[in-house]
């Protein structure tokens, strides 16, 4: 800074210089903790795995045994049927479990904030509970829920399909019951998606609830005075003003759902299930690296996945980023 001050110019008092400095560099200082930590703990793993994706490496032999093979891992993956199956599985589950989360969470958050007056706390807590519950408990409980003979899900469907009051709606299911949720290929992805929606929609409800808190209350009062009903308030006030939060939550779902691991791993006992119908990309990458000890190939899978996530996130940013990233003025 001192350089820019020509000789002879009266030096500014300390306090003014400090003030200028902090105003000018404040944003850089504010973001520096993240980037310092990232440089130490985040960057090396990324560079390492990029390097690794160009190597053939069996990890149990130690770091010294990597062998450079160029793009061979990527080329190999391009016609690896299991890799492509894992990509389609992941996209299928990401959509089937991603869309309902938001379709459910946004109106729920709205109903919690504007539709009801009592029990907001306990209801929000109830929706959020699945997100808190540890994977160990979830695995045991859901393996039992999805059981073919005695599983609660099938028992419920059985009841709904035969009870007089619900048979008109669920009767069509009667022939298909009991459904072998985890044993047959066509049922595995729906089962995983059900678990994912169950576990994460409450998380989104809380995100949206926090987002709704930013909407000034008098907007709604003004709308009411103008005679708007609840539905109109939802579409004309809530949705537009919630856009930054929706943008954020959807970004997270895209990034998170494409990295699904725990739920499919639990429900298929790590195998991916019949015909690998539940094998997601991250599962495939884990098994390739840690079980089959082809770490270089695993790294290449990781980078192809990053590429996929990056492209989809970019599309999302391109189409919705203008409104999703806008700031209030």
């Amino acid at each position, binding site marked *: 800074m001192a350089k820019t001050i020509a000789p002879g110019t009266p030096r500014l008092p300390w306090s003014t210089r400090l003030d200028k400095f902090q105003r000018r560099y404040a944003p850089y200082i504010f973001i520096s903790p993240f980037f310092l930590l990232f440089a130490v703990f985040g960057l090396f793993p990324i560079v390492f795995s990029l390097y690794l994706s160009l190597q053939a490496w069996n990890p149990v032999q130690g770091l010294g045994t990597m062998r450079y093979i160029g793009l061979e891992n990527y080329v190999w993956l391009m016609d690896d049927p299991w890799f492509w199956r894992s990509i389609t599985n992941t996209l299928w589950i990401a959509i089937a479990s991603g869309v309902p989360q938001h379709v459910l969470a946004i109106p729920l958050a709205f109903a919690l904030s504007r539709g009801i007056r009592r029990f*907001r706390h306990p209801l929000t807590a109830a929706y959020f509970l699945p*997100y808190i519950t540890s994977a160990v408990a979830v695995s045991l409980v859901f393996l039992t829920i999805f059981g073919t003979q005695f599983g609660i899900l099938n028992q419920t469907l059985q009841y709904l399909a035969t009870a007089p009051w619900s048979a008109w709606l669920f009767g069509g299911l009667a022939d298909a019951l009991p459904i072998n949720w985890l044993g047959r290929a066509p049922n595995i992805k729906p089962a995983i998606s059900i678990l994912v929606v169950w576990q994460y929609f409450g998380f989104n409800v809380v995100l949206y609830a926090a987002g709704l808190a930013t909407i000034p209350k008098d907007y709604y009062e003004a709308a009411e005075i103008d005679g708007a009903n609840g539905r109109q308030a939802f579409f004309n006030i809530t949705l537009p003003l919630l856009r930054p939060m929706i943008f954020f939550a959807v970004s997270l779902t895209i990034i998170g759902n494409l990295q699904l691991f725990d739920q499919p791993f639990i429900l298929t006992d790590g195998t991916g299930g019949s015909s690998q119908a539940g094998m997601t990309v991250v599962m495939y990458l884990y098994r390739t690296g840690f079980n089959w000890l082809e770490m270089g190939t695993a790294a290449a899978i990781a980078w192809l996945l990053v590429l996929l996530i990056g492209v989809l996130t970019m599309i999302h940013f391109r189409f919705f980023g203008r409104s999703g990233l806008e700031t*209030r003025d």
Partner: protein
Amino acid sequence: MRASAKNDARVVAEHGLGARIGRALVYLLLVALALLTLFPFYWMFVLATHLQTDIFSAPPPMWFGEALQRNYDALLARLPFLRNIWNSFYIAGLATAFTMFFASLAGFAFAMYQFRFKNVLFGTVVASLMVPPVLGIIPYYLIIQWLGWIDTPRAIWFPAMASAFGIFLMRQYIASSMPRDLMDAGRIDGASEFRIYWSIALPIVRPGLATLGLVTFIGQWNNFLVPLVVLSSRENFTVPVALRTMQGLIQTDWGAVLIGTSLAVLPLLIIFMLASRQVIEGLVAGSVKG
């Protein structure tokens, strides 16, 4: 005159039969959904009071059993469980406190300032979320080992302070809730940039901050992969690693595991109650006028 007539009409509508039924329907739906999410949770507690043999009976038990004490004893016989809970609490607590501070600070910068390389830097933050963590475990272990942090809590909470998720969340939240005029008003009053963040921005974004704290705490509490490899002695284990040591080759004492998961979820419930008050009350109060 016309406005008041309209108001009267609205009052009538709100208390009319249609609105009542509508509200009852909303409640019915909300409660039905809550039952769906509560059930597995309830069941976890139920199964925690049963012996392994009963847990695996078919149909499985739906009501509380009598093995609570036995399962609890089995858990404590196998693990220094209270110690494990403390470890998790310590790690998650520190990580959460620092994350809330650093993420809101960075989120504030990305939301309220224009500066060079802003888009590139923000893009880096978002992009860092895209790399699946499974593979990073080997290089990560090398760093921790190089630092001499193996088998210490800071190997987990220190790196966790860099939360890309937190920055993204706080950026979005601050951008949508903090009017820009407040920045200028603060500057005219002579406040430093940090002061503006601390005294003006932070109070406005409390619901968002509470959400971030909540999610960070839960994430760290349930974090598994990193603690598994960087912690080695059972006295230093966090809850998820400790509980998984009971998952044997053939047999797992599920009763003891489930009493462990049930106990481990209680601190999270308390944290949730604290945080959700902020979120929900923010909801009810509405926010600063734009």
